[in-house]
């Protein structure tokens, strides 16, 4: 086994309290590209890391939200007298107590902190109660009386769009249609008539619950200066602070949001969860700190989910197997509030041609309000839904023209410089071809017929492949900007002020790797400050596979600035040293001609405080191609500039008696640019694939008439260690010009192709395609009966 002291890395990173010191025996820097143990691992394995959930400041009180029992209703009256009379109650608050806009959400500000006139989903927050402890809180919440007049409700996008359907947001002239848009190239309608083969499928994709282990939580208080300070589990502290300020009517400079390490998020904490309630409660608790920590049930009821939807996809090719025409129509259910529904739809649409060249295409997308729980961002951001449809139809079409599904994909796969099926010129790194070739040559693929033939009695076997693609960053309009801040401390160590939250993917450890490489310092010479809107610089949200891509680029710049200042200072202090003879070495600046070292702390002490802090801003380059799409399609993120790619291969075995699908083997070849830290790269692929496997097979989040039925982890089946195989992840390295050290974000690509890969294997095994996910045993058994 590798031992700590002979590996490059370190076991911990001192936080500002000086805990969790490194245990490296080596003072050497760890170059980007080689393994570096994550800086956060030490605090996490010892239980010392303090998450938002772990804050219990003195004088703590608790807040809780009384939620709507109706999917759609007018609020006739709220009677808080009973609750106010309960022992230990500190405040009982309604929408009327909010001085600001009482609206959160981005880009649409349509979600009330507390419902003012009506409720739009079962679980919509109506009354906020603050009490001395959790038991008193529970009693007081039970004493709140709200009188509702139930309204007709809509529970699926089709009925929501029907004429005369009840409208959720009356002020919208588009009614329940949140977003619709088109991306087209050539003449798809006509092109289908030129095809030798055409296949079509309609796929229903389920909700997916993020099920991060740390449910939504935070603590907040108003300090002596009137600053609302919040420690909260969030992916977007900077955006939150602005949203909280506007919603609650306080000046933005009076809101401070601190985002410690998150206990998971996956998109589900990209935006407001408990922040509005926490802030409001803190404003009414007489300066005492307030805590909210959702129970698992409340989390399931109130948190956003991956957009459920229907994707209809038609694909045609010529006789020689050249893809010629594509049409895709996706309709997503955004639930009661917009959330990131517009961008999610566009990201899905913008990836509808997958990794392929297609001459003609037409992609229509819609996102629709319903009285269901709100949908939002989830790893993959609309793309897994669309790739699920595309990659299954690709298999169907290959079968129709009698081509091997892998050769068919290879034949149509884009190379650098090609134009994709949606007209995007692949100008940046792209190597799906090698991913596919490696899969083609793998024994699990070449030997698949033999393995399938050896299926035991009452078992069916299948082998599937699928490809995936995912654009990184925010797209061409919304600026993807990161601002890094780095300080040389007077003891000669460095402090990095992280601008992007770390929800578990390790981006803030990557900061140490990057700055260490640029400054030639070992990891134990760094400490990290997690995002804090008062101390760090706004670098936007932890999302879109951009965290290391964007902040890393900014940090390279900031480290470069600081390096120059340090060397300048030495040259200034030692007039006999020539500037070009000075280099940074671990802990010091070296004068190379005589090898003399000047310790960093001596240099630091000689520097002005302002010079010891370097900041730099980096703005992501965007795709400047002018494609004929509506402004909102562009604004919501089409087209991207840099993409990640993947090919997945899986073997499944199906039990004919129970219908259960067992995943026997799973491989993923991925182009995510250059690898910065091999084991952290693998973490993202493995975690993403397994989440995709859950999406494909087990995770069945049920909502009936708008009410969440799946309320706990015994009914919402997450993959356990017994359900999943080891994943073989093989990187196909490219060098992405726009990325720090040539990397591209790897956080999301792993999930994108899992569902269709498994579905293709299953379809091969049972001779019937199950178009509704997840592929539960019941659905498999029904399909087996139909196939028979």
């Amino acid at each position, binding site marked *: *086994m*590798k*031992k*700590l002291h002979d590996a490059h890395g370190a*076991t911990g990173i001192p936080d500002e309290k000086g805990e969790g010191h490194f*245990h490296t025996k080596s003072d050497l820097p760890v170059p980007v590209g080689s393994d570096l*143990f*994550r800086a*956060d*691992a*030490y*605090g*996490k*394995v*010892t*239980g*010392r*890391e*303090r*998450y938002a*959930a*772990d804050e*219990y400041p003195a004088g703590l009180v608790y807040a809780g939200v009384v939620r709507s029992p109706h999917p759609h209703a007018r609020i006739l009256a709220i009677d808080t007298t009973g609750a106010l009379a309960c022992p230990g109650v500190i405040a009982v608050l309604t929408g009327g107590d909010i001085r600001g806009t009482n609206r959160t959400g981005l880009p649409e500000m349509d979600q009330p902190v507390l419902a003012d006139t009506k409720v739009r989903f079962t679980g919509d927050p109506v009354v906020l109660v603050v009490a001395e402890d959790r038991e008193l809180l529970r009693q007081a919440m039970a004493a709140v009386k709200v009188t509702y007049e139930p309204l007709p409700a809509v529970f699926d996008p089709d009925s929501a769009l029907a004429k005369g359907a009840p409208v959720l947001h009356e002020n919208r002239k588009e009614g329940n249609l949140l977003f619709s848009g088109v991306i087209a190239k050539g003449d798809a309608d006509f092109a289908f008539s030129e095809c030798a083969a055409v296949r079509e499928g309609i796929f229903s994709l389920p909700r997916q619950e*993020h*099920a*991060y*282990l*740390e*449910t939504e939580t935070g603590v907040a208080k108003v300090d002596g200066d009137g600053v609302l300070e919040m420690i909260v589990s969030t992916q977007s502290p900077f955006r939150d602070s602005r949203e909280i300020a506007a919603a609650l009517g306080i000046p933005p400079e009076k809101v401070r949001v601190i985002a410690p*390490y*998150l*206990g*998971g*998020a*996956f998109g589900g904490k990209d935006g407001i969860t408990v922040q509005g309630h926490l802030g409001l409660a803190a404003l009414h608790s007489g300066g005492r700190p307030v805590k909210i920590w959702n*129970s*698992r049930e409340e989390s399931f009821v109130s948190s956003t989910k991956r957009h459920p939807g229907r994707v209809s996809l038609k694909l045609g090719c010529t006789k020689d197997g050249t893809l010629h025409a594509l049409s895709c129509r996706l309709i997503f259910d955004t639930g009661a509030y917009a959330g990131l529904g517009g961008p999610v739809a566009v990201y899905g649409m913008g990836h509808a041609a997958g990794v392929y060249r297609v001459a003609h295409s037409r992609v229509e997308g819609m996102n629709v309000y319903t009285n269901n729980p709100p949908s939002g961002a989830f790893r993959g951001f609309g793309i897994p839904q669309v790739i699920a449809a595309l990659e299954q139809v690709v298999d169907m079409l290959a079968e129709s023209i009698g081509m091997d599904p892998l050769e068919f994909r290879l034949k149509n796969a884009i190379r650098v410089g090609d134009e994709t099926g949606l007209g995007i010129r692949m100008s940046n790194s792209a190597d799906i071809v090698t991913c596919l070739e490696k899969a083609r040559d793998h024994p699990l693929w070449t030997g698949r017929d033999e393995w399938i033939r050896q299926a035991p009695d009452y078992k069916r076997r299948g082998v599937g492949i699928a490809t995936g693609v995912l654009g990184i960053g925010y797209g061409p309009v919304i600026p993807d900007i990161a601002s890094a801040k780095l300080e040389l401390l007077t003891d000669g160590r460095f402090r990095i002020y992280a601008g992007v939250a770390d*929800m*578990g*993917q*390790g981006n803030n450890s990557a900061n140490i790797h990057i700055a260490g490489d640029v400054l030639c310092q070992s990891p134990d010479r760094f400490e990290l400050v997690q995002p804090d809107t008062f101390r760090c610089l706004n670098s936007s949200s932890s999302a879109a596979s951009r965290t290391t891509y964007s902040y890393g680029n900014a940090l390279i710049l900031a480290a470069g600035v600081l390096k120059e200042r340090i060397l300048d200072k030495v040259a200034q202090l030692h007039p006999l040293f020539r500037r070009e003879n000075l280099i940074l070495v671990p802990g010091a600046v070296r004068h190379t001609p005589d090898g003399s070292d000047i310790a960093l702390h001596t240099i630091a002490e000689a520097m002005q405080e302002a010079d010891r802090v370097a900041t730099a801003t980096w703005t992501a380059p965007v795709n400047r191609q002018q494609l004929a799409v509506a402004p909102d399609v562009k604004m919501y993120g089409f087209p991207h500039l840099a993409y990640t790619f993947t090919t997945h291969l899986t073997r499944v075995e199906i039990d004919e008696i129970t219908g259960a699908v067992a995943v026997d083997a799973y491989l993923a070849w991925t182009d995510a640019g250059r690898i910065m830290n091999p*084991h*952290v790269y*693998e*973490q993202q692929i*493995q*975690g993403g*694939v*397994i*989440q995709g496997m859950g999406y494909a097979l087990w995770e069945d989040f049920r909502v009936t008439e708008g009410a969440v039925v799946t309320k*706990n*982890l*015994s009914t919402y089946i*997450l993959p*356990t*260690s*017994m359900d*999943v195989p*080891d*994943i073989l992840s093989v990187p196909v390295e490219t060098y992405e010009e726009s990325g720090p050290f040539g990397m591209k974000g790897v956080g999301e690509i792993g999930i994108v192709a899992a569902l269709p890969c498994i579905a293709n294997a299953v379809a091969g095994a049972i001779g019937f395609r199950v178009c509704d996910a997840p592929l539960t045993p019941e659905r498999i058994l029904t399909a087996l009966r139909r196939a028979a």
Partner: protein
Amino acid sequence: MKIRCIVNGKQTDLETAPDRRVVDLLREDLGLCGTKEACGSGECGACTILVDGESRLSCLMIAAQLEGKEIVTIEGFSKEHLHPIQEAFIVHGAVQCGFCTPGMVLAAADLLKRNPAPDRHEIRRAISGNLCRCTGYQKIVDAIESLARVEEESDE
């Protein structure tokens, strides 16, 4: 009610309601927040602690059950140096968000005590009550397996 027990090696007298959940007692009264809660109903394993050396779910236990017991939480699991399991979790990249990690580490300790040389399948079975949403389990299994091999070698 008064409860006498040993918490992380220290004789401890607790004054608490007998039906207080152990997870709350640890986190809120004793400040031992390394024990996580992610479901509160025995479904996730995040609240795993060792009671008399065996793994238990602290969200399903009440204070009265601690009388006379020896409790080890993640904070007390390593003394001066990291426990080899913790070290293995770091080295093998078994930690992402880390919210499952304390429970996983203690579940692994329980397994290795019962079965010093488990194979991958036995490891997977032993941690199947501990959910992890980030890692896909593979590196956690790698970490635990690395210790099993060490045991095997030293047996020979």
